[in-house]
């Protein structure tokens, strides 16, 4: 395969995809600025390098390295947002947002409502997480359900580089506060680069693969896992449709329900622990809307209900795998 081939898209990884989206947004509107620990080039452009090059290009006033002070980081973003800016705050790892939940839940999410619509909070909180790298219990959690349960927040979770580029751009120009969750393992997976300027609207899911027998609903890294499971199932004669939610909140229920109305079977998969996770909401809504159409109850796949373990075999056992996905599908096939 020739990378220069005119018909093949250039390959990039998700780090590059997000970097592209950020750069395009900063180019488009000088009210967009970034802040977070080590985000400027002097400090290396972020611990994963997502913001690399941006302070050199746009200046350190718009790419601001901060002290280790997540309440101040998110708070400063909230304040700048209500004053007309579009801040993008990086919280290095998702578990660290726990020290700033007041700023998110009580302020970012509510200031529009509590002010009667006078102050909106168009900020993005970018954060990375995900198990599989031996980071242990305090660096790997998936907390998207918390934010999805918070009225006033949007939650976006890209499944690949082009998705990430288009979604971060839309998140920045969305007038509501967005938590943008980046799965660390996906950072290093290559995919097609987006067309320059390609945008992906928030709140709209994508059919990642068409199928007729069962619907797999996923987001983030689970999309790829579901696509892999769909391949296996295809060999067994089962045609699986895979939905990439892109936006976890608000949910694109019409797309989900259309698909399940057709397939009459559904599995929801995510990396977050299963109990009280996002899958529960989706499963409940599918049952509520399509109860008599369903051939089987909706199945949920998620990680074990436990802290993320360090030891490699335990960590591997912690997260759901292909076996669990296929089992869940088979349960719906009855």
């Amino acid at each position, binding site marked *: 395969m020739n990378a220069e081939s005119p018909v093949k898209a250039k390959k990039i990884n998700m780090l590059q995809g997000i970097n592209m989206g950020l750069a395009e947004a900063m180019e488009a509107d000088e009210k967009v600025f970034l802040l977070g620990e080590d985000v400027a080039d002097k400090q290396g452009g972020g611990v994963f390098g997502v913001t690399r090059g941006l302070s050199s290009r746009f200046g350190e006033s718009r790419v601001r390295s901060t002290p280790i002070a997540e*309440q101040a980081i998110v*708070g400063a973003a909230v*304040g700048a947002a209500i*004053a007309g800016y579009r801040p993008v705050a990086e919280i290095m790892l998702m578990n660290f947002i726990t020290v700033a939940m007041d700023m998110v839940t009580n*302020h970012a999410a509510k200031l529009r409502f509590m002010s*009667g*619509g006078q102050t909106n909070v168009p900020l993005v909180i970018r954060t990375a997480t995900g198990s599989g790298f031996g980071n242990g219990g305090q660096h790997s959690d998936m907390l998207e359900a918390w934010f999805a349960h918070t009225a*006033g927040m949007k939650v976006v979770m890209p499944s690949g580089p082009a998705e990430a580029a288009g979604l971060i751009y839309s998140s920045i120009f*969305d007038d509501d506060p967005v938590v943008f969750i980046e799965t660390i393992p996906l950072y290093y997976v290559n995919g097609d680069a987006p067309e320059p300027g390609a945008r992906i609207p928030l709140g709209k899911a994508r059919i990642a693969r068409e199928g007729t027998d069962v619907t797999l609903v996923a987001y983030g890294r689970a999309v790829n896992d579901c696509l892999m499971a769909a391949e296996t199932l295809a060999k067994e004669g089962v045609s699986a449709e895979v939905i990439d939610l892109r936006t976890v909140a608000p949910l694109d229920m019409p797309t989900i329900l259309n698909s399940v109305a057709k397939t009459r079977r559904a599995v929801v998969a995510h990396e977050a622990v299963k109990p009280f996770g996002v899958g529960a909401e989706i499963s409940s809504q599918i049952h509520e809307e399509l109860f008599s159409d369903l051939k089987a109850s909706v199945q949920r796949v998620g990680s074990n209900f436990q802290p993320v373990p360090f030891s490699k075999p335990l960590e591997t056992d912690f997260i759901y795998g292909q076996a669990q996905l296929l089992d869940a599908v088979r349960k719906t096939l009855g």
Partner: protein
Amino acid sequence: MVTGSNAPDVATLMRIYRRMSSIKQNDERMRATIRAGKLAIIYYSPRGQEVIPSAIAEHLNDDDYLVTIYRGIHDQIAKGVPLKSLWAEYAGKVTGTCKGKGGPMHITHPETGVMVTTGVVGSGMPIATGLALASQMSGDGRVTITNFGDGASNIGAFHESLNLASIWKLPVVFVCQNNGYAEHTHYSEGTAVENIADRAASYNMPGVTVDGNDPVAMWKAAQEAVARARAGEGPTLLECKTFRFMGHLLGDDSHYIPKEEMAAALEKDPVPLFRQKLIDDWQVPAADLDKLDADIATEIDEAVQFALDSAYPDLVENKRDILAEEMA
């Protein structure tokens, strides 16, 4: 009204007094209205703390930003929020500052720069750094004032905010209204430092302790802090010593405050004292002050009536302003 002189003239003092009188009378009316059963709210009286925002306001423009707290009605009045809109919000009416959706603890009124009123202790400060950052980046020349209590100086958000503001030299003034108590806890039982202002040393910023009940001292201290912020020289921690006459919230019997402490504080009620000072030291005719007080009373009458007469918001408001797009 931005001023640069280093002593307030009588016109300045009269404006300060006007704000103080507004705050005091408004508070009295609020308590009476609640006690009369016409308003069912939880009320955090600012009585005793009138001087602080009244003096600071002299150095602020309408578009300077203010962040304040549940005990913030004095700050809001001094910043210029119309009494009608305030009362209507307190009453949960659609004509309120926030269409009744925020309520007393969440007054927002961008026209007068009131950007956030928060009910979470300490949480205004991080947001204030962001407002100040916006001003610094845009060069709009605005200053941000963020008010908080003595108790709030013990929470993490205080620390993070002052450090960030100092590192970035943000145009913000941290105004600690030290009224000696946090809910029912005496200052000394929660706070391991003699003066809150001493904590400025942790952030390489000026820390100033001022008698928050002395209008002239307050005027001077605020002038310096605001000027410093406006000149791009960075933040100040301004600790204003004061007292809370009515306890934490209406109904609080202040059982935890020694009787002598309360009596001594009430004796130094800053509003009548300053009124007398204007008469004695500045030769302001008592009649002028009577007139001014009476005008305020009328304004409050109108505000109360306006609030009581206004309609409640339509239930559709429960679907609006959650996200930019109206909820289904």
